[in-house]
């Protein structure tokens, strides 16, 4: 897909299974919305094909596709009330009055808006508008429902409720959901399949657990959760060397002595007394996070983030042990060296909170 000569999507090859909850996850500008708009029919790809059940859909306009969309800002029709908004697609399809009545009422029941039929759209809260938007799309019984960051405009608690609600609706109706979000937690908790995208390319496709536990490259490792990413060398199968030590690991299939990225999740690291540790470092900062402490430890100038419930005072010398299952080895990629160093720890956290603020607007 190209846009004003700029390549927005590159080599996207995706299969969507029936009844699946699939999430396109990535930072803004990664091409996930573009992908969704191509599926919805609002954009025609400059190259490549969109196939539904084996049929080429490239030139089929949106109004002839068996796909419905929940738009980012809901796009509810302000001149119609709740009932008429939901009934819109059915009226266009010229269904029988009786059937329209039944289907709209059934759908309003499913999204929990019974009794709101005659309310004006602008008298509804954000969460309610969201439900109307979902009902309006689903009442047409599409084969696929596209959702473009549908929860981005809701506050945190409402977002959590709606996540459960959406998952429940998807399971009740058995419709394929293609969901776009930049919120990794949302993606992991709702999806059957997660597609991580960046710079118009798919970085990894997999079940949420696999994406988290077996990230393919430094971008995925960093975008999904927190990661310490180190340079290492794969000596042989199940043997990786970094920080001047050789560790056992569970990864194999690399070339001998291949330079690799090593991921260690901050919550997998346990402190031990310094004399027992594989590595020994100094605590440089401690942040209380409620559930745990975020502790930054300096190992020979490289700072690691460690999440633990054990408090360590600043300046303490600590040791850590790494078990083979704590270590995940990845091939080098264009993202190597860009992520996973917590030397600029505080700055990174500032960025995260800024993001969070943006979402809640």
């Amino acid at each position, binding site marked *: 897909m190209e846009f004003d000569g700029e390549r927005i999507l590159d080599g996207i090859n995706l299969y969507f299974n029936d009844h699946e909850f699939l999430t396109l996850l990535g930072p803004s500008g990664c091409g996930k919305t573009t992908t969704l708009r191509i599926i*919805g029919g*609002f954009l025609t790809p400059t190259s490549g094909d969109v196939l539904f059940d084996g049929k080429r859909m490239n030139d089929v*306009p*949106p*109004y002839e596709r068996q*796909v*419905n*969309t929940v*738009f*980012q*800002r809901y*796009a*509810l*029709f*302000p*001149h119609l009330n709740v009932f008429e908004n939901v009934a*819109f*697609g059915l009226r*266009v*399809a010229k269904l029988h009055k009786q059937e329209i009545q039944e289907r709209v009422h059934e759908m309003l029941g499913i999204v929990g808006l019974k009794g709101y039929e005659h309310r004006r759209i*602008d008298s509804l809260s954000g969460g309610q508008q969201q439900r109307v938007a979902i009902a*309006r*799309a689903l009442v*047409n019984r599409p084969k696929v429902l596209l959702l473009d960051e549908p929860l981005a405009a809701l506050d945190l608690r409402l977002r959590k409720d709606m996540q459960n609600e959406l998952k429940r609706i998807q399971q009740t109706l058995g419709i394929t959901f293609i969901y776009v979000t930049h919120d990794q937690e949302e993606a992991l908790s709702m999806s059957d399949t997660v597609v991580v995208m960046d710079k118009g390319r798919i970085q990894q496709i997999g079940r949420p657990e696999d994406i988290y536990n077996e990230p393919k490259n430094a971008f995925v490792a960093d975008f999904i959760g927190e990661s310490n990413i180190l340079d290492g060398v794969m000596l042989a199968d199940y043997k990786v060397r970094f920080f001047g030590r050789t560790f056992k690991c569970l990864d194999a299939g690399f070339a001998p002595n291949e330079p690799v990225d090593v991921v260690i999740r901050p919550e997998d690291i346990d402190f031990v007394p310094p004399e027992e540790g594989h590595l020994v470092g100094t605590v440089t900062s401690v942040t209380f996070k409620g559930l745990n402490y975020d502790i930054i430890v300096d190992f020979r100038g490289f700072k690691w983030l460690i999440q633990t419930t054990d408090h360590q005072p600043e300046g303490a010398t600590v040791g850590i042990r790494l078990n083979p299952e704590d270590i995940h080895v990845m091939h080098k990629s264009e993202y190597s060296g860009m992520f996973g160093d917590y030397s600029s720890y505080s700055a990174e956290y500032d960025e995260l909170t800024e993001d969070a603020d943006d979402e809640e607007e």
Partner: protein
Amino acid sequence: MKKVNRLITILIFVFLYIPMLVLIVASFSSGKDITEFEGFTFMRYAEVFRDRSLLGLLGNSLLISILASSIATVFGTVASLGIYSLKPRMRKTVMSLTNIPMTNPDIVTGISLSLLFVFVGSKMLHQRNSLTFWTLLIAHVTFNLPYVILNVMPKLQQMDHSLVEAAMDLGCTPVKSFFRVTIHEIMPGIITGAIMAFTMSLDDFVISYFVTGLDFITLPVEIYNYTKKQMQPKIYAMFTMLFLLIFVLMVVMNLLQLRQDKRRKEAKQ
């Protein structure tokens, strides 16, 4: 400072409305002129309604303004949709082009239209009377169009474009989505555009003067002919009624605008 501001505001209103006030007073005067105000009377109004020719002229004026503003509203709305779908740079260029005729002196527009009509009528269609009701209508539609576009365009730009996409997503063809969604969103702009076009048409003298034939004359043109003779006081009554009509239309227009702004503000909260 506040007092000064208020005083100036009042003064401006006085300056703006005193001529109208004079006219209204004159229309109720039983004397020949405002200079010889003798007594209060509704007689002038009665005279207006008894004067067949004057009523006929008013009818002509209303006919031409209603027709011209309706046609201009339809064309202008369709044109706005077209301009809106252009790329932003092209859109800006086209918008300035459509705005120029509004600032163009009426007399220039009138004479150039007249030249065009005479040329087309006599040279190409071989008509003896090339200036008719139809040329007048075309001229009015022409100068009304920019006002409609000027009012509809901002409404299109304010509209959430995903509404159109949502309509298409729910099975509407582009045409259907216009009638089911877009038109409701831009309706306030269409109405104000139509009202503005109507008032422009109703009180146009300069352009009409050059493009109308002898078979169809509008009120302002004929009144101009009256001024060459002695002014009849019943004209004042007629003016007063025209003024009130336009005044009411403008108030309605502003109320519509106000209600819409309020609704938008509520929706934002």
